[in-house]
């Protein structure tokens, strides 16, 4: 998989390295920032994102934790309440369910329940998504669940620039922010020339087109861009929107695009039922119904636990041919 077209200058950097650079910058720039999680120190992180950081910053700033998501996410909330700026790494979104109580009942609510007296400036990073044959307990895309919860922000960096700069914006936010890094993006490489601070409010148009709007985020963004290239060869100019921020959703960018193209396809690695794609579809219907020329299409994961065998795993996930077919369906082709 390749990065989106960035200027081909400067050193090549991987998504993994971009995240690491973001963590380094945060730790160097603010004494209140520290990182904790399972295997982030001595092992260097299960996706090797934090490799070398323990050696560079020592155990005060890079802290290995016991295998208890509830305990170390709770500790992160406490540290944030106490004035620190913790970055908590959870191995995958599947394991974050063990900390759901801390995230949903504590992190997301304390500001509200204290009448604004307490802020929880906590950042939780976790991996999400399938594609590495890690089977049904390590491969799901549950970020859409978190996007349901008021009181937290949910980010899905899909580009090197967002991997590199979203963390800084998240740490600057006084409220809890969850960052979802898709496992298939870590090896993506490219250059960061000219990239700079990013916002954590807006969706971005990654490809301009007039015929249909393809809406994606995280791991499905590049599959969607590949699909858009295929469509272009058939004379269909697809616009591709990278949601970037799953909560709060940037409805304005979505509607502005759909009002122009009159057609929308939502690509979401989550399951269709009760999903983020359902929410986006609902907002399009609410806000742009009279501009639509076709029913909104969705390309989601098959409604099964993600299979282990490679061919079945690939078959279960959104793939470019399915996105192409859905886009053409909106055009009656």
């Amino acid at each position: 998989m390749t990065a989106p077209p960035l200027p081909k200058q400067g050193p090549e950097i991987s998504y993994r390295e971009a995240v690491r650079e973001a963590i380094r910058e945060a730790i160097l720039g603010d004494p209140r920032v520290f990182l904790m999680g399972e295997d982030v120190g001595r092992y260097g992180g299960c996706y090797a994102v934090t490799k070398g950081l323990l050696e560079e910053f020592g155990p005060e700033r890079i802290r290995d934790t016991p295998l208890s998501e509830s305990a170390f996410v709770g500790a992160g909330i406490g540290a944030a309440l106490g004035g620190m700026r913790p970055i908590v790494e959870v191995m995958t979104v599947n394991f974050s369910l063990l900390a759901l109580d801390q995230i949903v009942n504590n992190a997301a609510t304390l500001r509200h329940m204290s009448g604004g007296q307490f802020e929880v400036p906590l950042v939780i990073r976790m991996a999400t998504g399938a594609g590495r044959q890690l089977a049904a307990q390590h491969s799901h895309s549950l970020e859409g669940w978190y996007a349901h919860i008021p009181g937290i922000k949910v980010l899905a960096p899909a580009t090197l620039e967002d991997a590199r700069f979203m963390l800084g914006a998240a740490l600057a936010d006084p409220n809890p922010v969850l960052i979802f890094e898709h496992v298939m993006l870590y090896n993506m490489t490219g250059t960061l020339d000219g990239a700079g601070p990013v916002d954590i409010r807006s969706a971005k148009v990654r490809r301009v087109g007039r015929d249909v709007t393809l809406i994606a985020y995280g791991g499905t963004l590049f599959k969607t861009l590949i699909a858009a290239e295929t469509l272009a060869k058939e004379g269909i100019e697809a616009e591709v929107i990278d949601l970037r921020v799953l909560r709060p959703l940037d409805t304005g960018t979505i509607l502005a695009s759909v009002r122009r193209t009159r057609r929308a396809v939502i690509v979401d690695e989550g399951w269709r039922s009760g999903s983020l794609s359902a929410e986006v579809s609902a907002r399009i219907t609410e806000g742009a119904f009279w501009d639509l020329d076709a029913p909104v299409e969705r390309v989601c994961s098959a409604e099964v636990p993600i299979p282990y065998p490679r061919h079945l795993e690939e078959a279960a996930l959104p793939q470019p041919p399915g996105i192409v077919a859905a886009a053409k369906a909106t055009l009656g082709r």
Partner: protein
Amino acid sequence: MAEFRMPSLGADMVAGTLVEWLRRPGDRVRRGDIVAVVETQKGAIEIEIFQDGVIERLLVEVGTTVPVGTPLALVSGIGVGAPAAPTPPPLRPEAVVQAPAPRVPIPGPQVGRPLASPAARRIAQQFGVDLRALRGTGPGGAIVSADVEQAAKAPRRFDPAEMRRAIGAAMARSKREIPHYYLSTTIDITVAQRWMEARNAERPPPQRLLLAAPLLKAVALALRGSPELNGYHGERGFEPSPAIHIGVAIAIRGGGLMAPAIHDVDKLGVDELMAKLRDLGMRARSGGLRSSELSDSTITVTNIGERGVEAVFGIIYPPQVALVGLGKPMERPAVIEGKVLPRRTIVATLSADHRASDGHRGALFLAEMDRLLQAPEQL
């Protein structure tokens, strides 16, 4: 700030459909610039603006049908307060009520409801397009916005029935409201004919004069002495027009009639006038007439006589107050100084509005026309 309004392009027009904006907000416009195209029963007409200024805001979207007089755009700038163009008085509101609503209501849920997207339905309503007449190219054969937009853009076919209705309405109004009187005289055009033939002898066909040119010029010059026949009858009674804009009745293939104006005919040379006549006839049949040409005639001339009748007694086109009819030029026996001689003659008639003039005035006018045609080289 001034309003640029849907012009009345004739007494038979009650509403028009804006089909194209040729200028955008922020554009500087000058008097006479074409700023929009409006679809009427007479086809697509280019609409001019009558003041200098800057387009501030467009008030009517493309595809909308609005009654005559509806503000289409706001215009600001140096032209504010400039004298308005000589346009006929606005139509009475009752005429607007009679406007046939071109919009087809979007059918509700029912058997046989066309499969159409929400966008297609919205645009169809806006443009007055009947979805049932379209074939869809969208998912499942659904009608989509592009299908409707294409249908809305397609030039509307000339509808003889619609034009017949419009002519009927205008003529009925004329006969109902205008107390016509009719005069007729035979004019000797032998001299004019010879003069014209002499001029044409040295010219290639495209530059040759037709009799219509000296005749029109004579009408225009004669009108200078008879202002009671040239102008408009409106709410405040008759208002003579200082300018002489002659509407020339032109038959349209497929049936129907329009009378676009040639402006300031009294100030045009005969050759210039001929060129304008040719141009007007071409544009009337192929489209591309300007709004002012359709709206500001101060009198109409019909020379239907070219088609073989000796005399034509026309019906005045409101709000004008006179119409000159020219019959077929014919060799007739004439008695001159006691001798019967063959002379080329034409019967000129005048239909005029008794609210603005009397037969005496009409007679003077026709006599003056006759006099002028005896000295064609001075036209």
